[in-house]
């Protein structure tokens, strides 16, 4: 349904998207997970036709977005990161307007608008102006405007940024409804837990490049059973490295992900069992630990493993 092949987008010397390829199927949610500035929105903008790719190919429902842009866009729905509403028009008129923009007419339009109002939970506020709505209600209406024409491919660009937990849960339900109705959903986020909950498959993107791709289960398997152990304190440079390397005889999969004078990030299996040995080794090397944080394997750990930095940095 959505095919992206070797997509490149350059701005002068800056390569915002670098050789990105993925495929998302109908009835699934494909996630693009990455920190701010990783290239997620640029990728979505290339798909939606807002940006012209420097190289590569994008096909929506079999239509090339460059060569056959109008047909491709007919199958697309977009829920932008920032609100895209007429706050001085009633909610129902917003839905009608965007429905007409995608070619809906007459009773088909009215029926669909009524359905979407129910879906987003604004049927009783249909004639109210969005400027009187809460942030969560505006987000839901923003979502409704993107799906009013029942797109085959739905692009969701960080739809939950700045949304309260209750509205976020409602938006998750809406995304799942679209997936269950057969839409192909591309969902960008920098929230690991959102990706884990919603996405059938995903790609982790950083500095414009995809650094890992697969189902959530496949990606977690890349980690094995390794935990991420974050230590803060004082860590003399070479002595600490040597001491940790010395532990490899007992802890085979121990690996230093990153090291600084005041922090140390390690991955290893069953980390909690090995903590005394690690503390002793660091102490023996002249260092000390003031704070410890242990995370079990998840996508955030994988991102740490792959990039050496936090997802939200």
């Amino acid at each position: 349904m959505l095919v992206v092949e070797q997509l490149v987008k350059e701005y002068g010397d800056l390569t915002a998207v670098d050789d990105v390829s993925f495929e998302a199927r109908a009835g699934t949610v494909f996630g693009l997970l990455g920190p701010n500035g990783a290239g997620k929105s640029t990728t979505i903008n290339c798909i939606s036709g807002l940006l012209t790719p420097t190289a590569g190919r994008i096909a929506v429902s079999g239509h090339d977005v460059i060569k056959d842009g109008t047909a491709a866009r007919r199958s697309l729905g977009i829920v932008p990161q920032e609100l895209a509403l007429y706050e001085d028009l009633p909610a129902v008129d917003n839905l009608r307007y965007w429905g007409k923009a995608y070619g809906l007419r007459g009773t088909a339009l009215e029926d669909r608008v009524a359905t979407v109002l129910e879906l987003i939970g604004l049927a009783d506020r249909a004639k109210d102006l969005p400027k009187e709505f809460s942030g969560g209600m505006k987000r839901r209406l923003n979502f409704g405007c993107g799906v009013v024409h029942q797109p085959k491919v739905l692009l969701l660009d960080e739809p939950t940024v700045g949304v309260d937990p209750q509205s976020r849960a409602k938006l998750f339900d809406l995304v799942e409804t679209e997936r269950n109705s057969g839409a192909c959903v591309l969902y960008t986020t920098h929230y690991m837990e959102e990706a884990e909950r919603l996405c059938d498959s995903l790609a982790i993107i950083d500095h414009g490049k995809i650094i890992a791709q697969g189902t959530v289960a496949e990606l977690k398997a890349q980690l094995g059973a390794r935990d991420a152990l974050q230590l803060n304190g004082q860590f003399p440079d070479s002595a600490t490295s040597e001491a940790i390397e010395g532990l490899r005889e007992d802890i085979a999969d121990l690996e230093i992900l990153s090291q600084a004078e005041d922090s140390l990030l390690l991955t290893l299996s069953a980390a909690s069992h090995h903590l005394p040995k690690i503390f002793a080794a660091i102490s023996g090397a002249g260092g000390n630990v003031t704070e410890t944080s242990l995370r079990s394997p998840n996508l955030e750990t994988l991102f740490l493993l792959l990039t050496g930095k936090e997802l939200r940095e």
Partner: protein
Amino acid sequence: MSFLLASVRKDLARWAQDRTAVLIWLGIPFLIGGLITSMIDGGGGSPTGTLLIADEDDSLLSGFVVGAYSQEQLGELIIVEQVSAKEGEARINDGEASAFLTIPEGFQDALLNETPVTLTLKTNPSQTILPGIIQDVTEILLDAGFYLQRLLGPELRSITDAGFEGAPSDAFIAAISVDIQHKINRIIDKTDPMAIDLQIVGPPPAEPQPNYALLFLPGIILMAVLFASNSLAADYWIERDKGTLRRLVSAPGALTGFVAGKAIAAAAVMGVVTAVVLVVGFAYHGIVWSKFIPSLVWVSLGGVGLFAWLAALQMMFPNNRAANLVTTILLFPLLMAGGSFFPLAALPDWIANIGRLSPNGFIADRLTGELTSATTWSIDAQSWLTVVAITAGGLAVSVLRLRTGFARR
């Protein structure tokens, strides 16, 4: 078509909520136009001065002098007020009149007896033209009085000596008239000019010129239209900031309908603004109402052209503030050149010709022609085509700019 109508309705519904803007678009031109028109029309078209006269003699001849200032064209220039010497002195000192003439007691006797008499004329130094006119007229009157006394002194004396308490008898008037006629007959050969038949050939009669205030009306209308155009043109930036343009360019084939919808909505707004000013202008100047529709259509169409190009220009700038600032600054030379502050007809030809090349000047010039011509729908086809082409060009540039990056944020 459905999306086009939806776009029109959408923009009209949104713009209708901003009633303050409509009041400003109309208020400023009405204020300026009202001030200018009242300055031009307020005094009936000609400046007038006030002559205060203290007639202390209160005689037949002093009455002739007082009456002489109110005769024919002089009466249109000078308003004569009879006052006491004290009041006249106070008012001329306060600058409330152009001049103050005192006719002293004994004026008639002195004139008839050929004894010296002094009339005092005090003029207002803060005025230049009218006091001068009054002074010249007074000197001419005194000269005329001298010759009148020389010629008809006995007759005048007999009138004053008669001392009528009521109207003089018919016999007395007849006798005096006969005496005067005889004297005129005796001197007429010496005073009549030679019998030369002089034919004065003047220029052919010119078409009646419209009044100056009427010439202001097109400029005032275009001022309101320019304010409205510039304000509505900023709506593209508002939509961009709302993010709706991003959603729009992702929709298939919606861009043309969106821009056309804005143009039609803008035309409707221009129509309302123009209609209000036209109704007031037509009623004030007594213009025939058959010219209302062509004037309304012409200005509304031209207004959409101005809107289209101002919008295209605003979309060239990197941010909303710069766009707004530049087009607002641009409005003033356009208003100046286009005849909103000075009617093109009142400007030197070379300046007026430049003004007519400005978009609003072009529209105002043709509108002036429509309002002042003897026929309706007098604007030529070439002018209509020019405005249609310019409007279409502006809208095409707007679509292009939306496609080439303006919609991105």
